[in-house]
């Protein structure tokens, strides 16, 4: 019988500026060398759904870690209160996200059972941040699930600190997996086309999958936007992508 115990817990890590921030981790309880997955939570915060996704990566055989990007603004707060606080302040600055993701990248790689490889993944606003982490942080894979404003200009009067990454795609240092709904508006299919052209132009390794009858947040099982076919296929693509780029080779 396979031993498949998983340990999930909240830990402290060092994020941007060496700040102490909290992170939720989940990892298989065995001595096999494992790759790491950094889960970047969406704008609604470090919530139950994101923690569930983090645990899922542990069951897939990875050391998963989700830094609480709102630790500074709202330590110990309910996730939705923390998200409201962050929104009122204009969202999380990009540099802070990069520092927090780098801190998380150090964390899953440091246990002796790690294989030293790590990928990042994010949904919604976290999708864009996953691409940003793929540019700024030493990761071996980046996964963008319908991140808005990776390319495309935010509307006039846009209050949040979100800057498109068009001019930085050439700096992407990891293969990118992109999963998008064709009924989404942010990112729209045209914006996904634009991102794909930039990736091709810069000769980047990427893999995009686009789903009909799916809009934004098609992975969200507890929202009306959930789309079974897209989500099931999307998870399979994520598994395969991580197996190629992050899982232990030859173990």
């Amino acid at each position, binding site marked *: 019988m396979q031993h498949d115990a998983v340990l999930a817990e909240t830990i402290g890590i060092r994020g941007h500026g060496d700040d102490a921030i909290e992170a939720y981790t989940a990892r298989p309880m065995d001595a096999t060398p494992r790759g790491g997955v950094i889960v970047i939570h969406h704008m609604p915060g470090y919530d139950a759904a994101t923690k569930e996704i983090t645990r899922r990566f542990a069951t897939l055989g990875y050391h998963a870690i989700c830094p609480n990007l709102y630790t500074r603004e709202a330590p110990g707060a309910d996730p939705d*209160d923390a998200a*409201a*606080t962050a*929104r*009122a302040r204009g969202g999380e600055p990009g540099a802070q996200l990069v520092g927090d993701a780098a801190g998380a990248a150090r964390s899953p790689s440091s246990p002796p059972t790690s294989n030293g490889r790590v990928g990042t993944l994010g949904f919604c*606003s976290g999708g864009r941040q996953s691409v940003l982490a793929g540019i700024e942080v030493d990761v071996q894979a980046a996964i963008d699930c319908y991140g808005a404003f990776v390319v495309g200009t935010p509307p006039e009067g846009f*209050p949040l600190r979100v800057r498109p990454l068009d001019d930085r795609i050439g700096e992407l240092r990891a293969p990118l997996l992109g999963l998008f709904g064709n009924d989404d508006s942010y990112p729209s299919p045209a914006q996904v086309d634009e991102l794909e052209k930039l990736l091709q132009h810069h000769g980047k390794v990427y893999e995009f999958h686009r789903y009909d009858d799916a809009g934004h947040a098609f992975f969200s099982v507890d929202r*009306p*936007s959930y789309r079974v076919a897209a989500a099931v296929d999307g998870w399979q693509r994520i598994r395969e992508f991580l197996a190629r780029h992050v899982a232990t080779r030859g173990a």
Partner: protein
Amino acid sequence: MCTYSTEKVALADSSGKGPTGWFPLETATVYYDHPVHAPDEHTVNIDFLNPAHGPGARVAVELSLDSARELLAALAVTVDRAAHH
């Protein structure tokens, strides 16, 4: 859709009742985005906040678009009537 579109309003001489009782309101953020609880993909959300009192000092509502329109009309009528008091 995930527009993050947010309007921010400064509030004065206003109060709200949160989980720990009444508190003075400093700001309101109004945005059309994914709700936490309401059964719809997007709702008009309002957070009445007092940042000085911490993240928990928050009165939150998530309104369907139709409900938000009704509320908007009711506010307009009420504010108009108040001008004649």
